[in-house]
């Protein structure tokens, strides 16, 4: 049973929604229908000098329309992400997916926590989770996707400069709002995930984190994107789980951060 598909996806629409943050919708043949929240896809450049695929998380999945929404950051000039950002409706992008495990949907009262470019994958999760849930979004200063979250769940935000919401980070926002939950789902920079892991332990919460690492194959063969795990991994039996295969979502207790 094939669960991953390599396709030429077609750009439906794209716009810049914040500085260097792009909102791209692509039409897929099979990927969207088979995708779940927390998974990612690999996008290939059309440029033979940049060979490795770029993993980008799924911000939205429309299984009926067969479309995927990707919200990603352009990481610099002459980068693959810059190349994607220039695509217009009708352009083709070669993609591979869906990849990774995605989030397991539970029914406990949940915080959906995103930091920076870790915010987008929490949106699809917010849509799919059928439980009490609050999105906690951490920005540097410029907001994006806020209305999308507000349409589907309670939302609180933190900004580094205090220009909106709580000044500080996502934990500051939770504390400032006196919010409580039983489980955390999170995606964002490693220092944030590390802090959330500690916060969850202190507060006796479950915590699931979506991790990142430089990848090559994206399907578990090359062993580039491993993370250190408490348990022996299935593949190599050496406490190294593959982020692209066993991840990107891990129980925070299981991984070194």
């Amino acid at each position: 049973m094939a669960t991953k598909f390599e396709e030429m996806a077609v750009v439906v629409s794209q716009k810049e929604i914040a500085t260097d943050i792009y909102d791209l919708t692509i039409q897929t043949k099979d990927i969207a229908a088979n995708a779940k929240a927390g998974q990612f896809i690999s996008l290939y450049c059309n440029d033979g000098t940049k060979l490795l695929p770029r993993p980008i998380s799924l911000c939205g999945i429309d299984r009926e329309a067969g479309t995927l929404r990707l919200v990603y950051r352009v990481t610099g000039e002459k980068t693959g992400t810059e190349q994607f950002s220039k695509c217009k409706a009708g352009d083709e992008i070669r993609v591979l997916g869906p990849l990774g495990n995605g989030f397991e949907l539970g029914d406990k009262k949940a915080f959906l926590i995103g930091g920076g470019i870790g915010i987008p994958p929490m949106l699809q999760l917010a849509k799919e989770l059928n439980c009490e849930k609050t999105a906690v979004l951490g920005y540097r200063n410029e907001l994006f996707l806020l209305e999308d979250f507000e349409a589907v769940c309670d939302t609180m935000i933190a900004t580094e400069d205090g220009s909106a919401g709580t000044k500080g980070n996502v934990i500051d926002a939770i504390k400032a709002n006196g919010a409580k939950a039983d489980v955390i789902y999170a995606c964002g920079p490693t220092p944030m995930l590390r802090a959330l892991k500690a916060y969850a332990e202190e507060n006796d919460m479950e915590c699931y984190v979506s991790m990142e690492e430089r990848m090559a194959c994206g399907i578990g063969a090359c062993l580039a994107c491993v993370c250190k795990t408490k348990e022996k991994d299935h593949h190599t039996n050496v406490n190294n789980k593959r982020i692209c295969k066993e991840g990107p979502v891990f129980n925070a207790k299981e991984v070194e951060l």
Partner: protein
Amino acid sequence: MSDIKTSVNLCGVELKNPVMVASGTFGSGEEYSEFVDLNRLGAVVTKGVANIPWPGNPTPRVAEVYGGMLNAVGLQNPGIDVFCNRDIPFLKNYDTKIIVNVCGKSTSDYLEVVERLADEPVDMLEINISCPNVKEGGIAFGQDPKLVEQITSDIKKIAKQPVIMKLSPNVTDITEMARAAEAGGADCLSLINTLTGMKIDIDRRTFVLANKTGGMSGPAIHPIAVRMVYQTAQAVKLPLIGMGGIATAEDAIEMILAGATAVSVGTANFVDPRTTIKVVEGIEAYMRKYGVKDINELVGAVHER
């Protein structure tokens, strides 16, 4: 397909076609079996396996470079026991040859693996004496002709399957290493392993790879690989498996013309998981276009202008 003969014979092992995969780029085939019918490959070369599990290097383990990539995975592997119990049975489900890549940090490591494989249903052994990413063993063996000859002959004494020695390109004269392996009794040579490279993040002023250096692969290194295969084909009588930047059938044919009896697709698997099949089909198309009845006519068939 019956009008052309694509099968090649590597020291007694008959491959249905010359297309295999480069060790470390294809796992033991399972992950790619979703995209590739493994039955269509000449052989699957497994990721390197040692006597015991190796955790490999810290991350980041890969970096993209112009027309290629660097890797410093560090031969993470589950050890020979898990490998024999899980990976070999998986591959036995397919009608393809099984070549096990063997790594070690000392001669006895290698010998332990080779011995353990003696009664396993695998077709050939490829000995990795050229991994640039592990401090002990690996590259140290592959850059000294005396050590190449010694380890080859030690392995040949106990190996039950034909032995392929995998050569490093990070040497002054690859033919010296090739002749040493031949003198040690190697049945076949594979080349090239990766070239040692480095990438620096100029914004952070740090090495991109945790290991500082990594092995460079991809189309960028193809001309160096073709040159080394050609030189080696002139220097030894052993059959050669050519690799290094093969991403298309054209690249594979170039390698065969240079003197390779078989070819391995490596990094290109990451770029397009179906590359191997495209190479198989492209070689057939080339043979038909030029009326080549038997692929063996092409091996080493490059000539002066």
